[in-house]
């Protein structure tokens, strides 16, 4: 089963994404900040990461830089942010994201990207 790690400090956003992804049959795990996400990424192989930017302790950029530079994971990472500024997008790509989407990502849209990036369930 395809496993996706949702990294967001907002429980509501995590639940929102979880509902969408679990509804489509993906397995979902959550982390509330970059540090927790790193711990999980070290222990478990995920097929995809959905990463928020602004988080306490370690933000989304930091998390991505870490998994890319330490070569912990090369699975696709979607960075999700509330800001649509190109600057943020550049930063996200620079840090190691493969896609940059703007919240709220509509369920259909998210599933399309996930399906294209890691396939169906």
């Amino acid at each position: 089963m395809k496993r996706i790690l949702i990294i967001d400090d907002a429980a509501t956003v995590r639940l929102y994404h979880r509902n969408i992804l679990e509804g489509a049959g993906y397995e979902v795990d959550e982390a509330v900040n970059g540090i927790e996400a790193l711990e999980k990424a070290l222990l478990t192989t995920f097929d995809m990461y959905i990463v928020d930017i602004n988080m306490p302790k370690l933000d989304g950029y930091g998390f991505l830089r870490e998994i890319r530079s330490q070569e912990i994971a090369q699975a696709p990472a979607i960075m999700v942010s509330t800001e649509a500024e190109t600057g943020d997008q550049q930063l996200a790509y620079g840090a190691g994201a493969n896609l940059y989407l703007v919240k709220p990502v509509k369920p259909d849209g998210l599933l399309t990207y996930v399906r294209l990036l890691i396939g169906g369930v």
Partner: protein
Amino acid sequence: MTPLLEQFMSEARDVLQGISEKLMQLEAEPNSRETINELFRLVHTLKGNSGLFEFPEMTRVLHAGEDLMDAVRDGRVNYSQMLADRLLDAMDFVNLLLDEIEINGEIGTNHVQHGLQQTELLRQLLGTATAKTVENSGATVAKAVKKIHKKLPNMASLVALPEAQRMALYEQSISVNTLHLVQYVPEHECFFKGEDPFFQARQIPQTIWHSVQAVEPWPVMAELDAYCCNLEFQALTATSPDDLYELFRYTPEQVSINAVPAIVMALPSGEPNGGPVYGDFVVDALALLEAGDIAKLINVSNTMLELHSPNLWLSSALRWLLLVLKLEPNNHSAQRILIESFNHLVAPNWADLTPNVEIESLEEVTVAATLDTEVVTNVATNDDSFALNFILQAQRQILHLPDSDTWLVGRLNSVAATLTAIHINAGRQDVLPTLQDALAEALTASTAAPLLMWLDDYAMQANTPALNAANKVEPGVVQGKLVGEVLEGASLSQNVATRLDINQNEASTDIDADMKFGRRSEDSYSAPKTLKVDQVKIDILMNLIGEMVVAKNSLPYLAGLAETQYGVRELGREIKSQYAVINRIAEEMQDAIMQVRMMPVSFIFQRFPRLVRDTSRKLEKIVNLVLEGEETEADKNIVEALADPLIHIVRNSLDHGLETPEVRRATGKPEAGKLTIRASQESNRVYIEISDDGKGINPDVVKRKAYEKGIIDEATMERMTDQEAVNLVFAAGFSTTEIISDLSGRGVGMDVVRSAVEKVNGTVSIESEVGKGTLIRLSLPLSMAITNVMIVESADQAFGVPMGMVVETVRVPKSNIRTIKNHKTMVLRGRIIPLLSLNDLLAVDAPQLANENEELAMLVVQINNESIGILVDEFRETVDIILKPMTGIIGGLGGYSGSALLGDGSVLMVLNLKELF
């Protein structure tokens, strides 16, 4: 309420609480970077969350708050008292909206104005950059649109409108964009829901252009389902999106409303005059445009216009060109397209324009269109080819980044993994070997170039069948259908898709194997460690364990029965030993469930900083609040029951206890008053102490007041001790302020506090010293679900007395009882204790029975800080019971706090001694 909304609500409350806490902290140390960052993050989180729902008022205010905090974070705006005030007000507003959502499930329309005010107040603090952003409340959402390529329908039939009218519309919407395209696809089963799509579509005001078409090709007559709606309505209107959303408020998901660039009006029309013969003009005009010599271009066009009859197609096109040059001087692509149309005398299909023109314009206008854009996102991303292109584009962008980053290898690998995945999913495994080569080359050379080159090659190949099919699809075709067609075109039928998934699985396994730290996903899986459980479920558990505790009480009774009635002592003993086991388990279970219900008192403490701050400011007092023992835990019901009494006490202290800075200075105290709220736990009670260093309670004033109000008579007043006098503040109908203040007054006094605390089996006491301050102490049980009572007998009946009140039990020789002034008393360890007979209290006409030694059973209880002896006939054991409050007719019966079921099935009435006196 959906679970998602519930989650949102509870998180939102937490975050709001966090925001006010952080603001309080910031007040203490306005320069703390950490606090400012944290504050920004909280507002940001809340805004992001609210964006998941349709709460525009909330999102708007929060967005302003976020921008403001962002500015504070960047040092563009300085933190100030006013800023904190406004932010707090805004958060109060959000809280209000949350309340409304909790009650009604949605936000009423009556908050729009208030919300705009709040937003404006926040924006004002932002200073300069306001004007633009104020209007653009849904900026983040709107901005999202720029990434989405939304096809417009071909509106060539607009040409039927007179040119003058179109020009007027064009001019109008250049300055204020008013043009919106409504695309309305009713549900198939809409007729069964009482909708009338045709009527609905005709309600669209100020329609400029419209079309109705079939969503799917009409089936043959034999298969046609006349009750299945298969229509799509499109209308171009000059109405504001607000009105449109109002019109479609019941079916927002079926409608997309998009701002349309004004340029769609620019459709030349007229007599073709035999065909295109203006080749030279086109070349010249294009050259002038290229060179930026607009003045000359206008000149040439004007001359051309004068030379030709105004009815010609050419003249019409020239008029449009001149108009566009005048009103949209920078829209070169539109100008070029108009000029090029001279070549074939066909009006440009603006819908097919290069993405540049369309997207720029879309972005520009959707800024004003606030939240409309959500719908756009929805439709646009439905399209696989769009998503594919988007992903490819992103990878290209990533590869274009400088190669200098230390994590280049990780980045290249992840891009390759992403590219691999989407190619597998698009059925293009054939290109993978070349991708592998490119990746290897890139890794060796430490540069993204080989992958970029591969991407360029690939992109050209990818543009054949699947992606191109999507681009060529007729405008106006519903997207869902479009995806189907595209997939079919690329022979991605269901079977193939399934097969691809298998391939994908294999591929990703390979990737896993390559990974340095690749551990199997089964190695460990940690689920979230906290559960959110509905309180009702815990209550059910609590009730069940309560019943269990009571039910187990029947076992000793059964054991006794076995011994005495059936004469089987062995069985009795076995039942007893079994009872010990069950008793232990039940107690542990009860403990465990109680632990679940425990919550820290910080839950109510956390609102005090704000309360104290606002109140003291209103009263122009300076108050330092000290909170201690916030981590102390008690049952949820107890903690919740504490909230109102505590607020009342704190308000009282602020209002009546603590003095103004001037008064304090005059009496030699520090200007800032100190208010301490301390929670602590001792055995199974929680103590909350609220103390201030204010002026204290003057017993003389209290006495006089109580006398004036007729609460005490003169004789009582004379002999009252100071402590007794201070206790008078708890008397019903007592309030010490002369003026009923806005804060604590309201005609209710400490008596309300007392009854609220007593309702949960708590007690409240007060100590005060004039000039020094006041201390109010609340004592509360840890839990209220299970009560330990002592059973006493009187007049052949059993009664329960809560153990919390019982100080001791004493056998008193009848001879030791004295009668003073018609009151029975006795001396117990050097103290005089008033005695009351339970029979008297219950109005039973019988003397209390003494035992064979002529001793009476006396229960010493503590009531209002006084020891009182209650004479009963006999003491019995103590039991755990669940106290059921009395309801119905006997609900109004005083003297009892409730009833409970005993192990032998009998009913025990539990006395409320306080009410008996």
